[in-house]
């Protein structure tokens, strides 16, 4: 099996890239990746990226934070060492919990926010020292790059399609 060839289609305008990607999709050609200086709305559906589930992760981390706070305040204030502080009820959690709302809320937000941020960094593999994967350094400035991996026999057809859709540069690696 011959090696796949990598093609970079570079655009100056994100709308042209989206149109080009749509045409490629209708010809059953898969776009491997798109590099852009800012998020292009609508590109996910066109190149077949599934919806991110990171918000669901945040929700789960938040529930963890709430549970942690409830467990902590119950253990410390009701179970281990209940004390009479200004006559506030301390022997049953259900009587004392309104006072613990601020701490519970803060821990929920803390766990949700940091858990989600860490998940994002790890899933996208963004850590100090990691090498960037954009093939052209101008893609963080003003160029939009479509990366395709194609069989050598399809190469010229795809290059023509890219040029027809408005790509300013087409590079075959």
């Amino acid at each position, binding site marked *: 099996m011959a090696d796949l060839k990598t093609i970079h289609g570079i655009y100056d305008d994100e*709308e042209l890239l989206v149109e080009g990607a749509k045409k490629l999709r209708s010809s059953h050609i898969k776009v491997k*990746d*798109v*590099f*852009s*200086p*800012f*998020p*292009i*709305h609508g*590109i*996910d559906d066109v*190149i077949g*990226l599934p919806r*991110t589930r*990171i*918000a669901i992760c*945040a929700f789960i981390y938040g529930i963890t934070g709430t549970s942690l706070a409830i467990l902590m*305040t119950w253990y*410390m*204030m009701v179970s*281990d*060492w209940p*004390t009479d*502080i*200004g006559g506030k009820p301390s022997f049953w959690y259900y009587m*004392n919990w309104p*006072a*613990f709302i*601020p*701490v519970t*809320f*803060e*821990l929920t*937000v*803390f766990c*949700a*926010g*940091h858990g*989600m*941020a860490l998940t*994002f*960094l790890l*899933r*996208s*593999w*963004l*850590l*100090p020292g*990691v*090498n*960037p*994967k*954009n093939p052209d*350094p*101008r*893609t*963080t*400035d*003003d160029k939009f790059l479509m990366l395709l991996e194609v069989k050598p026999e399809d190469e010229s057809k795809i290059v023509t399609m890219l040029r027809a859709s408005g790509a300013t540069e087409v590079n075959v690696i």
Partner: protein
Amino acid sequence: MQHEASIREPLILGDRSYHEITTDIARPIESKANKYWYLVFTISVCAFIWGFSCLAYTIGTGIGQWGANKTVGWAWDITNFVWWIGIGHAGTLISAVLLLFRQKWRMAINRSAEAMTIFAVLCAAVFVTCHTGRPWLDYWLFPHANQFGSLWLNFNSPLTWDVFAVSTYLTISLVFWYLGLIPDFGAIRDRFKVQGKPLQAKIYKVLSFGWSGRARDWSRFEEVSLVLAGLSTPLVFSVHSIVSMDFATSIVPGWHTTIFPPYFVAGAVFSGFAMVSTLLLIMRKVLSLEHYVTIQHMEMMSIIITLTGSMVGVAYLSELFISWYSGVEYEGYAFLNRATGPYWWSYWGMMTCNVISPQLFWFKKVRTSLLAMFVLSIVVNIGMWFERFVIIVTSLHRDYLPSSWTMYHPTWVEIGIFIGTIGMFFTFFLLFARAFPVIALSELKTILKSSGEVPKRLRAEKEAAENTKH
């Protein structure tokens, strides 16, 4: 593509392309600082070092070096703590709340506002950690197993709620700010790469965490920003409400009122936007960013200052009314003392600065004049400092028992620490302005086509041409 109504003022002036946006925002990072930057930086660093020395002196010798006494247990320390935290709230409001309200004008100002939040909360943390008296035992503020039978914290107390609230606020704001910076660091890194400067490219490569701008990463990034905004919004309201509860849950007359949480939150947004205005008015001129931080942006901020200033003014009037209407003689005296007692000058200073000055922004001439905005934003910040001083010191120095009544005077040590935090704030902000992109450049590019001056004009001309055809 997003369409914007043609009657809206453009948010990016001039004929700018994506590349020019990158160049304009990267310029302060790539070029050398001018002599004014060095001048202000030197002054700030000197103030910072002076404050740090006063702080070291306090920790080494004791809180007795301050002017606080048994009657006035909290004075400049907590005034400054609440002042700084309040200032920090504008950054989160701009990033989070304005994002949820889809206000695109936030994009030019959110990065520097968020940086301001983090530096302000760090300054607040200086006060709250050193006012404990034995700061080396500050780890006791966090729940941990210990040798005192495992003595736990009192979770009923707002002082404990504060520990959780401020820690969460500082860390979440830091994360929100830094995640937003990642794509922009990527852009700066690639510019240095293209310009053939390997050391700078390496530094920003590490700072950018290897950002590549892949579609997948962008969609996750947008979702994370949205969720963090959704989390930060209730967070910012809760943090200052919890800070206000430090006072509201007590029995001190003048403190024990239910109006405090919304009053403090409005006051925080008020002072925060004033500080952002002060900083941005200077920054946009010095870094030549007037095309991005336009007069319209400054006007929007002035409008928010008027709105929140009015809320604060209404709160003052309600407090005054209730102090009489309640029939509680202690509450009545607390306000009579504020207006006519020995600290009357701070009370009237507060009233003039906070009630009168934001109302001036009703006049379009005032809210679009850069000089007026600069002067008034500083006046508002001074007024808000006096508000916290009035609330804390005038209520404490004369409460229930006249035999305990006494005066409070700050010592040079306390004043020094405050000056030091101002120096620290400006030192950090000046360094930020030179090494970090002060505008969210990737975000700003998303609104170039919909809100840029030239695309809007071209679209309007095309629509006019089509209308005349029919």
